[in-house]
């Protein structure tokens, strides 16, 4: 996994609440057996007409937002299906950070496994960033994971919380499985205990 480094980028406003993973990546694109190449299908049913042409007023189709790397989203982003294709599609599009007041649990976890950072902020701060993002491509927002800050184009600095372990993994581009494998003696010990205490398993 790539290391998550400090960056500034264009943020796209998506104020709709409850954007679900079916919206982020509709089911017809889940038939892939790969992780890559899903960016073109991100938000497909909102982004394209049934003849394949682009929906003009969809935010990511607008010239200013085609290179977005941040989404400023309405409450409860990523609810619904557990499909990791959602962060795969966003990441492949170029999105590294999603900001909202709340995220659905599985989507939130899935982001970290793919080098993406979901940031939870209070409603008033999300609103400031939402308004900032509406200014288009001249308004670049800066994200610094090390310092745990996000800075608007006007220089408002907001701090955010992040789980220390997840932060460590993102900053260093670490693979979870490798880290867990280092604790295999703990897992073996647990399995031995389980065999004695719950032999029916």
């Amino acid at each position, binding site marked *: 996994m790539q290391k998550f480094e400090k960056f500034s980028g264009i943020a796209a406003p998506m104020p*709709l609440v409850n954007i679900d993973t079916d919206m982020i990546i509709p089911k017809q694109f*889940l*038939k892939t057996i790969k992780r890559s190449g899903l960016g073109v299908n991100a938000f497909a049913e909102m982004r394209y007409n049934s003849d394949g042409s682009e929906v003009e007023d969809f935010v990511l189709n607008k010239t200013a937002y085609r290179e977005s790397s941040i989404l400023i989203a309405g*409450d409860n982003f990523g609810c619904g299906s*557990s499909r990791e294709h959602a*962060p795969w599609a966003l990441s492949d599009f170029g999105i590294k950070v999603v900001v909202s007041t709340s995220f659905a649990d*599985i989507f939130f976890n899935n982001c970290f496994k793919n080098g993406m950072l979901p940031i939870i902020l209070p409603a008033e701060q999300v609103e400031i960033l939402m308004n900032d993002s509406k200014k288009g491509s001249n308004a670049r927002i800066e994200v610094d994971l090390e310092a745990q800050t996000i800075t608007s184009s006007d220089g408002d600095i907001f701090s955010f919380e992040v789980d220390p372990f997840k932060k460590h993994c993102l900053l260093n581009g670490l693979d979870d499985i490798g880290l867990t494998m280092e*604790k295999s003696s703990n*897992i073996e010990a647990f399995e031995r205990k389980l065999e004695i205490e719950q032999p029916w398993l």
Partner: protein
Amino acid sequence: MTTPKTLYDKIWDAHVAHEADDGTCLLYIDRHLVHEVTSPQAFEGLRMSGRGVRAPNKTIAVPDHNVPTTIDREGGIDNEESRIQVEALDKNAREFGVHYYPVSDIRQGIVHIVGPEQGWTLPGMTVVCGDSHTATHGAFGALAHGIGTSEVEHVLATQTLIQKKSKNMKVEIKGKLRSGVTAKDITLSVIGATGTAGGTGYVIEYCGEAIRDLSMEGRMTVCNMAIEGGARAGLIAPDEKTFEYCKGRPHAPKGAAWEQAEEYWKTLFTDESAYFDKVIEINGEDIAPVVTWGTSPEDVLPITEIVPAPENFQGGKIEAVKRSLDYMGLTAGQKLTDIQIDTVFIGSCTNGRIEDLRAAAKILEGKKVKDGLRAMVVPGSGLVRAQAEEEGLADIFKQAGFEWRLAGCSMCLAMNPDQLSEGERCASTSNRNFEGRQGYKGRTHLVSPAMAAAAAVTGHLTDVREMI
């Protein structure tokens, strides 16, 4: 004296294989269910890193999302991508030596129906699957939740998950339910009350008389939709009904092992005065048969109500409701019972079990599906299908004018050919009414099996209480 624990606390504590100083835990996983859509990249990841499956005997694979449900499916899958995905599962299951129920096996079905049916799901376990509706298994007092594909690979390789503990939430349904009100109405009503983010950060324990009174099938319906309320998992403490359901199933313990297991399972309840971070109480008699009118599972109302107006809501929900009504082709003020439907779908991991089919068949007996309406029943597994045929339910469905299909996820998420067309309106026993969920621009109203059957007969959303 020890600190009183919730059911969730007890199951969690019994599965922590390692805890770091910051509270990050390695949670041991007892059962890992796998289907074809969210696993190919995980198996490929194992292959690329030269890793194996740590506990193939605790891993169960079954294709369900993509499989056709038409009677002729033995001929193979027409859609190339779907076929490749099912073939990949076939290959991965055999190569890595996990338990496997191929499409041709009568035990094949929706993964969350097959698990309990085969006795893979037992009280006190941790159960995961790359599917959000894994919450279903919580009905057994098992800690069960959905995971992404990276976590699927993590569990395959290590039989653990990196987790932090969620908070405890209690949802108590007090007293009895009224006639015509089912488990589906309970779970939708709870989501209506709490919202789709109301459970975020929590594991819910459902309790109270109305929950205890439910069958195991009903309890699975309730827990299944815990995810729609945003919760990591839903739980119901095991009791005699749970043990009775599990006993004798192919992978349930037998003989002395059963005795030992049951003794342990009887300790799985929330201690008196254990702490819950959030408590929701609902009177069972206040719950009516409900339907959804919008494109979020929280858009729930009793069938006797009218379509709400956007201005009845606050904040970002106002715009969302405008969008929903436009998408759904509905007008504020319209009576819900005036909404005409084109299609009825009975099935899914929410309502594809035998009791669901019985409830629908009871309404349909001696009646016909409204002229011009498309109606289909997709049993949750091959065994549910066989049992329904044995009980004569299949005949009732067929005589009423329903298509009687083979097992799979089908129109719940429409990855196979069972889809709504643009503007087609469906009364569905599934779990999500999201935009496009059942087909591009398709319109979904979530209902119980009995309500779906009633709508099939009248051709519009209907209060089932008028037909019982």
